[in-house]
């Protein structure tokens, strides 16, 4: 699968139908999940704010998926030197940052009525997502500040890998820090004991967000392939 897709032509042929299919699947899943989510009975603790969960948690899941994809592509690009893997890493980062940003804002809008504050440092998950957002920003900043494309790609890959190794430790450290500092226990939906009425729409929307990320990722990789082709053609034309 991977070896076959490493060829840009085959990737273009594959993504030509894979991206629209994923987009349709994503639309259906998100519509279904959000519809079910909007119709859940109000939670006895959270009231109607529980409806935010069905977009907040999927965005957070997708942002982590995006970082995993970024790290994985970077690793493949670094080890096997596939140009396509670098295009994939480059295409991944803005989407990841956008999903992370969405997760932060919706989490804050959920937190205001629940905790009485727009931001609560006592929630480890929010803090981890914030650090993830900063990691994406660092990646984008490094990539944007290096003019030489090949060098920028390689430096960004190394950074993505360092971040990927660090990410579980960051997650652990923030969780651990949170258990030490938690004054009063903050109940948070999304834990293990979630009723099926809430779990089903959450999983549907989560799958839908992931599929949407996949579809947009494929299209962005296509755009990057065309961009490189256009640049090399322009260079050829200039030299001819």
């Amino acid at each position, binding site marked *: 699968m991977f070896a076959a897709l490493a060829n840009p032509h085959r990737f273009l042929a594959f993504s030509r139908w894979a991206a629209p299919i994923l987009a349709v699947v994503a639309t259906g899943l998100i519509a279904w999940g959000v519809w079910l989510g909007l119709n859940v009975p109000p939670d006895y603790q959270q009231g109607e704010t529980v409806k935010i969960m069905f977009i907040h948690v999927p965005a957070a899941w997708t942002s982590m998926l995006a970082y995993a994809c970024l790290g994985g592509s970077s690793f493949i690009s670094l080890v096997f030197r596939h140009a396509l893997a670098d295009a994939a890493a480059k295409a991944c980062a803005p989407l990841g940052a*956008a999903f992370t940003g969405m997760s932060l804002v919706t989490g804050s809008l959920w937190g205001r009525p629940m905790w009485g504050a727009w931001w609560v440092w006592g929630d480890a998950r929010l803090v981890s997502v914030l650090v993830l957002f900063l990691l994406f920003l660092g990646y984008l900043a490094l990539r944007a500040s290096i003019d030489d494309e090949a060098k920028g790609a390689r430096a960004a890959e190394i950074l993505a890998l360092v971040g990927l190794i660090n990410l579980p430790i960051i997650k652990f450290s923030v969780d651990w820090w949170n258990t030490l500092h938690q004054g009063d226990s903050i109940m948070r939906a999304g834990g293990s004991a979630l009723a099926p009425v809430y779990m089903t729409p959450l999983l549907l929307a989560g799958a839908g967000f992931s599929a949407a990320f996949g579809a947009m990722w494929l299209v962005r990789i296509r755009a990057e392939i065309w961009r490189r082709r256009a640049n090399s053609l322009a260079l050829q034309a200039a030299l001819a």
Partner: protein
Amino acid sequence: MTTSPTDAHAVVAGALTAGKYAAYVWPAYGVTLVGFVWMILDTVLRARTWRRKADRLEQARGH
């Protein structure tokens, strides 16, 4: 589950009920919508621009 759909309006109204938390629920959905619209537009426009550019250069070379 909350309504037995006899009237489509009632079903939609039930889904769009957010009680006193409406001021938080709908901005959250709005932000998510804006995020998706931005991502889709940026992605599609980028792909179209570069595809056209590549095609044009390809044709120019062909002549």
